[in-house]
């Protein structure tokens, strides 16, 4: 039932409604609203009950194992939430003077410094509000850099075929042509393809490392050399930073710019699809182009750097300074981890991924890159299973929901057929992984003995398999009041 279906005309929630205003004559009649406002008329209790019950229809980290490759679904510490929501932090207006936000700005400044250290970069700006916006900003800086040197013929960005869709989409948004290069059998970028692709037209290369295939690009130093030699810059997509946190710094690999998905590596909540946050880090030569604002510390006083301080800045990308509350959560998280804890993130993310890969291999699943170490994630391909039984990766994913697990990422990266991209994250225990393997084995068995049952999954979720095609064909994007009142 929709919230609108709980509503009745004239029902009101009095506690949330101020007294009627006496002065309403300030707005010309012609500008006043005449059409009805379709918000639900419900009591406070009915709203609370409705949304509490809705919440229970979600899978989440707080209730299920969520081995969703490329998304880094790790535990979101509850302290990060409550400390970012201290009343004074919540009440602070974004345009309040800096002198009224020294506590907040201290956290932001320290977070910048920590992220610089972790990534090996010379500067960090916290403003990007999501990974894709971090990419946009990063590529815009690359463009600004080339333009500042009068190097305006560079109009191509190179992207491996295993990359996230955001990479090519971002390059286009920055006015670039996309050159896609292939992956070799081992899961690395095809070096010959890279060499063939670079040239005076190359503005840069966007790379995710470890890649979305779950392996570390062994030739990254060589790639850096090739691209830099051609005059291009290297962009590091931080989606998989969790795999190498405290092990390898992107700056040391030769990258010029990076975005860091705080909602992955730094455990800020995914929130059912956001808010994210993706600070960008830059090497020395890109410092003049950083987006504003950036926090500076001057004799113990914190202040925002603006266009006045960074005149070549690519500008502002959000109305204020990005997702401040998310940044506070990340700050609390890094302080809880500390240096030692940060080293261990990658250790145990890798241990969990390699263990789960080994165990699933032993259980009879085909590993896409069996000769490679898993990074923090790895790929299982069900090509053969599908050929033998008709059961697809999607069927297995849905059947996992019945077993109480969120599904792994399916059909990404696109180049591995019938793939499941599995990322357990470091916060899961061995028992959880073992229980997951048991369920995966059961499904494998079911696929062979009762394939139709598996294809019909899920059975235990609030709804069964939903009709996507109907959704797209018969668009129903907003509820309409029935002609007869309910």
């Amino acid at each position, binding site marked *: 039932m929709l919230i609108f279906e709980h509503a009745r005309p004239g029902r009101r929630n009095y506690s949330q409604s101020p007294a009627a205003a006496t002065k309403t004559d300030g707005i010309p009649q012609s500008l006043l609203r005449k059409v009805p406002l379709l918000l639900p008329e419900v009591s406070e209790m009915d*709203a609370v009950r409705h949304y509490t019950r809705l919440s229970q229809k979600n899978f989440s980290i707080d209730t299920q194992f969520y081995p969703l490759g490329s998304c880094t679904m790790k535990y979101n510490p509850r302290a990060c939430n409550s400390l970012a929501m201290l009343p004074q932090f919540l009440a602070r207006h974004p345009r309040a003077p800096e002198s009224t936000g020294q506590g907040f700005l201290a956290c932001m400044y320290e977070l910048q410094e920590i992220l610089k250290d972790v990534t090996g970069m010379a500067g960090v700006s916290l403003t990007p509000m999501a990974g894709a916006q971090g990419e946009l900003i990063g590529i815009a800086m690359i463009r600004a850099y080339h333009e500042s040197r009068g190097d305006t013929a560079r109009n191509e960005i190179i992207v491996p075929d295993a990359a996230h869709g955001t990479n090519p989409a971002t390059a286009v948004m*920055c006015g670039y042509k996309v050159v896609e290069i292939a992956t070799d059998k081992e899961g690395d970028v095809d070096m010959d393809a890279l060499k063939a692709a670079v040239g005076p037209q190359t503005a840069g290369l966007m790379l995710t490392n470890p890649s979305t295939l779950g392996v570390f690009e062994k030739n990254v130093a060589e790639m850096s050399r090739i691209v830099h030699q051609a005059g291009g810059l290297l962009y590091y997509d931080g989606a998989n930073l969790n795999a190498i946190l405290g092990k390898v710094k992107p700056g040391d690999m030769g990258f010029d710019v990076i975005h860091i998905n705080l909602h992955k590596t730094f455990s800020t909540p995914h929130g059912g699809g956001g808010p994210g946050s993706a600070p960008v880090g830059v090497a020395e030569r890109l410092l003049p182009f950083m987006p504003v604002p950036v926090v500076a510390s001057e004799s113990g006083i914190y202040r925002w750097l603006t266009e006045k301080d960074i005149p070549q800045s690519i500008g502002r*990308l959000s109305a204020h300074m990005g997702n401040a509350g998310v940044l506070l959560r990340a700050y609390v998280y890094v302080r809880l981890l500390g240096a030692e804890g940060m080293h261990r993130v990658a250790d145990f993310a890798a*241990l969990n991924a390699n263990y789960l890969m080994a165990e699933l291999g032993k259980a009879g699943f085909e590993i896409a890159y069996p000769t490679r170490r898993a990074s923090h994630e790895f790929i299982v391909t069900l090509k053969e299973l599908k050929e033998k039984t008709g059961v697809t990766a999607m069927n297995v994913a849905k059947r996992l929901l019945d077993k109480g697990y969120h599904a792994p990422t399916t059909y990404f990266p696109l180049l591995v057929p019938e793939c499941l991209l599995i990322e357990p994250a470091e916060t899961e225990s061995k028992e959880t992984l073992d229980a997951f393997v048991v369920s995966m084995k059961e499904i494998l068995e079911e696929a062979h003995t009762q394939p139709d049952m598996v294809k019909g999954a899920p059975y235990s979720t609030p709804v069964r398999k939903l009709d996507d095609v109907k959704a797209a064909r018969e668009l129903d994007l*907003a509820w309409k009041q029935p002609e007869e009142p309910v």
Partner: protein
Amino acid sequence: MPFIPHTEEDIQAMLASIGAKTIDDLFDEIPPALKGGSLKQVPPALSEMEISRLMLERAETDGRYLNFIGAGAYEHHIPAAVWQITTRGEFYSSYTPYQAEASQGTLQLLYEYQTMMASLTGMDVSNASMYDGASALAEAALMAVRSHKSSRRILMPATVHPIYRSVVRAIVKNQGIDVVEIPYCRESGQTLPESLDAFDKEEFAALVIPQPNFFGVLEQVDALTDWAHHKNALAIGVVNPMALALLNPPGEWGAKGADVAVGEGQPLGIPLSSGGPYFGFMACKQALVRQMPGRIIGRTTDQDGKPGFVLTLQAREQHIRRSKATSNICTNQGLMVTAATIYMALTGPEGLRRIASQSHANTLTLLEKLEGLKGVKRIFNGSVFHEMVISLPGPAGDILRTLKSQQILGGLNLEDYYPELGSAILVCATETKTPADLENYVGYLGQAITA
């Protein structure tokens, strides 16, 4: 090892299964030359007790002020239920609802949100949110260019929030899109329809129409919208959603209604929180739905015929369409939209109307009182919603600092944005201000300007 559950026994058993001797072996494909993650700027771990004390002290350093700043972020009362429900683990710690059957909570809520926003803006459809108001406006500009085909120029009034204008420029410039500014009327603070005559010869993909505008002033939206349509440009409304409880929504502007409505969703239950996370909203006419970026939820049925909700029209999106996507956007601001949806359900239409009209009334009351102060003047004569520009008889910066020492944030100093206005501040009084608050403000301002 915070947040790592592994016991020593677990580690050994797992390594044995993998066939590795140490955890370091798992990183043996990384060239040794690259390794070396020593972290000098990262302090040692704090316990939760220690970081709690630190954050509490920092929050107390920042204090609490009686706030009269608006300028795109507005202080409204947020019902306690909103965030108590929003931060439930099932909303807070869930991912994007790609697995629809395991995400009906989020999906149904987003469908309800889309319904509410479509009604609030008077549009046919809404997406499931954008990053913030400024970036939503930039995406609307890109959308207009995509759908227009022949023009890559956007007409932008100078009454649009100055930072929104910067953000639009930063986002669209690399695609060769021009943003052309329209000057405002120094008397009314509006974008006069007459001022558009100067642009009558050129082609534009869209005209942006703020309501209320950055000065808090109400624009002549009907005439502006009709002019855009007459020019075959899209009319993009950039609106305060709270104001729409009282104001004619973009879908009703002019003869045909605006084509796209965007704005900052923060007034709908999102805390000020130093500027974020907020959420942008975007709604449009049905004809434009396939040009709209961002996630969209559709209602459908499951295999038993039971209604359910899914992400739909994903073919527009980057994870399917890659370099041909409508936008690179992936994340939205789901959790903020969760809060906003609960906020709108808790206030309902009458509650929202009253919050808007009390904000309006407070601002008018404050204005009356301020005009009683010597040397304080309202700058523009256009009608306002809940914000206004006043000129002060001394340097705005000094006067605001004096007010601050009384725990009052008196408004936004406009000197950086509109130096032509002299010593001017933008002041907002929402429903949160009591008669005593207004008296305090006027009293202390009176002292500050004579000091």
